[in-house]
């Protein structure tokens, strides 16, 4: 027998279920712009039906519906996309970090502008050639000394700038390691709460969102990989070494790199002896590679060039004679790009253009130095100084170009994957509006049904048994 009270109960359940649905929609709309938020949806289901007992039959007339209830609040996410997105975004961030630093170095070296070192080299050679054309001319001598000083300073400045960029990247490494540790702690904390909620049979949707967001960041920094466990926790590892296991986070730390102070290397804190972190991708890897491979190569090239210039020019210059008969003077002091200085003892008079004493018109040394410009030098791999530096610029340009192209391509792939994630899990306001309208109508209808029951009760209570009154 259907009872009025059970009817009221069904109506009430419907009102509550739709109110719950509207609340979920509200939550979605509120978080439409929250990064990493995955949309949720209240899944409705009919409650367990009960049989109707028929008076005139032994058997029931059928099953009687018991109304509606919210079975669960579902979170829309594709774990499969998460893994792929993270691996691609790790390489995108790796290339991006490389590109950012390389572009910065390229701008610093400014080789296509008038300030390039190659221009200074040319100017230096030209000055020698001009002096060879008029070896006793004092103003040419003064301007040559000036160009030599500018060249030495050009080498010094490039070395310092490259070193400064290296130091900056070192700082970036330290701060990114701190970020990684902070994120690892957060994942461990979230693991704990998520596992607790999971154990009660509930779905901690918003906590999962938070954790996914942190895992995205971790992948961007280090290429970390996450595996979900049965209890809802994730295990995070970097290059095969565990970073977060359950509620425990292992930390990275930095320690001075031997033979390369003040640079630091990234190691696992807990391991003894500390093991180097084997990064699988991410910006940290990009920064470390540029700091430890690309920039040192550039500095090395600069040092080789400066060293050979100093050696070759000095060998000729010190064998020559100045206007005042001075001989045996090196033109440059120092051995590499940072120590290269114009020898203060060389002045316009003692600058050696002649290969014999007391011959102001002799230009043999000036000519010999001027042709060094195009002379293959064994110490530079049998190319001329200009070609050597030109080669350096070109190979660096190729590196930068690769980094730029790769960061664009990988960035696009990451974006496409993120778009797909967004398509599944993002909030569409139109959809929410439609769902809201649907839920609202259902709520109104349930309320109307309740009114009908109310009138029925009114009739029975107040309208019955009044005959003859």
């Amino acid at each position, binding site marked *: 027998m259907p009872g009025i009270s059970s009817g009221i109960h069904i109506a009430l359940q419907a009102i509550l279920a739709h109110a719950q649905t509207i609340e979920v929609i509200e939550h979605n709309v509120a978080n*439409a*712009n929250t990064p990493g938020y995955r949309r949720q949806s209240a899944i409705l289901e009919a409650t367990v039906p009960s049989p109707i007992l028929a008076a005139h039959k032994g058997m029931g007339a059928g099953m009687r519906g018991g109304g509606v209830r919210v079975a669960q609040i579902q979170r829309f996410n594709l774990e499969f996309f998460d893994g792929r997105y993270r691996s691609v975004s790790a390489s995108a961030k790796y290339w991006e970090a490389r590109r950012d630093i*390389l*572009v910065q170095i*390229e701008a610093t070296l400014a*080789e*296509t502008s008038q300030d390039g070192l*190659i*221009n200074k*080299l*040319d100017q230096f*050679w*030209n000055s020698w*050639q*001009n002096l*060879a*054309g008029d070896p*006793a001319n004092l103003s040419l001598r003064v301007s040559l000394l000036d160009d030599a000083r500018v060249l030495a300073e050009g080498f010094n400045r490039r070395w310092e700038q490259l070193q400064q960029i290296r130091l900056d990247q070192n700082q970036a490494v330290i701060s990114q390691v701190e970020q990684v540790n902070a994120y690892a702690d957060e994942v461990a904390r979230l693991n704990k709460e998520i596992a607790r909620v999971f154990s009660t049979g509930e779905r901690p949707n918003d906590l999962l969102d938070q954790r996914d967001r942190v895992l995205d960041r971790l992948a961007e920094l280090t290429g970390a990989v996450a595996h979900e466990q049965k209890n809802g926790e994730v295990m995070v590892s970097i290059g095969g070494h565990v970073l977060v296991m359950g509620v425990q986070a292992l930390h990275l730390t930095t320690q001075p790199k031997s033979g390369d102070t003040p640079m630091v290397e990234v190691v696992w804190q807990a391991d003894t002896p500390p093991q180097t972190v084997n990064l699988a991708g991410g910006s940290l890897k990009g920064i470390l590679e540029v700091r430890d491979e690309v920039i040192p190569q550039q500095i090395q090239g600069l040092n080789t060039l400066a060293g050979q210039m100093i050696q070759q020019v000095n060998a000729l210059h010190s064998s020559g004679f100045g206007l005042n008969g001075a001989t045996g003077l090196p033109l440059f002091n120092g051995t590499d790009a940072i120590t290269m200085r114009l020898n203060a003892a060389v002045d316009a008079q003692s600058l050696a253009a002649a290969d*014999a004493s*007391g*011959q*102001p*018109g*002799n*230009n*043999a040394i000036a*000519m010999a130095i*001027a*042709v060094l*410009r*195009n002379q293959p030098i064994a110490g530079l791999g049998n190319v001329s100084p*200009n*070609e050597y530096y*030109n080669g350096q*610029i*070109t*190979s*660096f*340009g*190729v*590196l*930068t*170009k690769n980094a*730029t192209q790769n960061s664009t391509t990988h960035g696009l792939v990451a*974006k496409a994957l*993120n*778009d797909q994630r*967004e*398509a*599944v899990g*993002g*909030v*569409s*306001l*139109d*959809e929410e*509006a*439609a769902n*809201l*309208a649907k839920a609202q109508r259902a709520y109104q209808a349930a309320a109307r049904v309740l009114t009908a029951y109310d009138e029925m009760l009114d009739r029975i209570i107040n309208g019955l048994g009044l005959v003859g009154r």
Partner: protein
Amino acid sequence: MRVTHQGMINNTIAHLSGNMDQIARLQSKIAAGKKNLSPSDDPVNTSQSLTMRSTLNNLQAYRSTNELTREWMEAADYSLEQLQTIGVRAVGLITRGLSDTMGSDERQHALAAEIDGMIAQVVQIGNSTHKGEYIFAGFQLHTQPFVMSDPNTLVYQGDNGLLQRAIAPGQSVVMNLPAEPVFRPLVESLIAARNALQSASFDRNALQTAFTQLESALDAVDAQRTGLGTRMRQVKAASDGIDKTEIELNSLLSKREDLNMAEAITLLRGQETTYQAVLEVSRRAISALSLFDYLR
């Protein structure tokens, strides 16, 4: 595919910034007038244009060397020309001196005095300077090369050093000449002639010998001047070569480095139109256009 608002906004922003990036790049290229702003834009092209630029810089230095060398050689050539003029006059005078029609007084005084003057002139020419440097002193640019220590002795204080000048890549030229072998025979033959003329008892044979000496000395001057002329042509040819190479390199460099303005500005216009279209579309996409506005 489900399109979400967040995704739409992300896309819009990505498109806008992509477009802006293109516009910014084109603008900087147009502002700089260059195809490539940094080596990474086109590493191979950059390498080639850097090499060309170096070569051009190098040519500049050769050009100024050539200019100086040419001036110097012209000065030397002018001096040799003067020597020849004096030589011709001396030959005339000595020929007159050899003739019997001349009185001994005239010979002793007028002719000898004139020859003496010529000696002074030759020494003076030997001491010519160019921009304050002695042309005939070899490496001793600041030392006066010729001095008459007494009326019969010529002292050469230079060193006959040959001044080599690089006039083109791998090509050099001697811009002066060994001065002593040119000036000494000339001066000495003139001294001999003067002394022969001056002597109280006129020695025809001595004058005749001096005359022969003078002629061979003048031949040497001729030979040196011809050699100098040949080398001057060499310098000129090198200069012309440099001019030609420079023009060629500049045009190659311009092809490699310079931006085609018309093309770039057209591209920029196109990009701006695209940008405006993206803005217009974004206005509609991002605007609060949603079902919420239509449901009641």
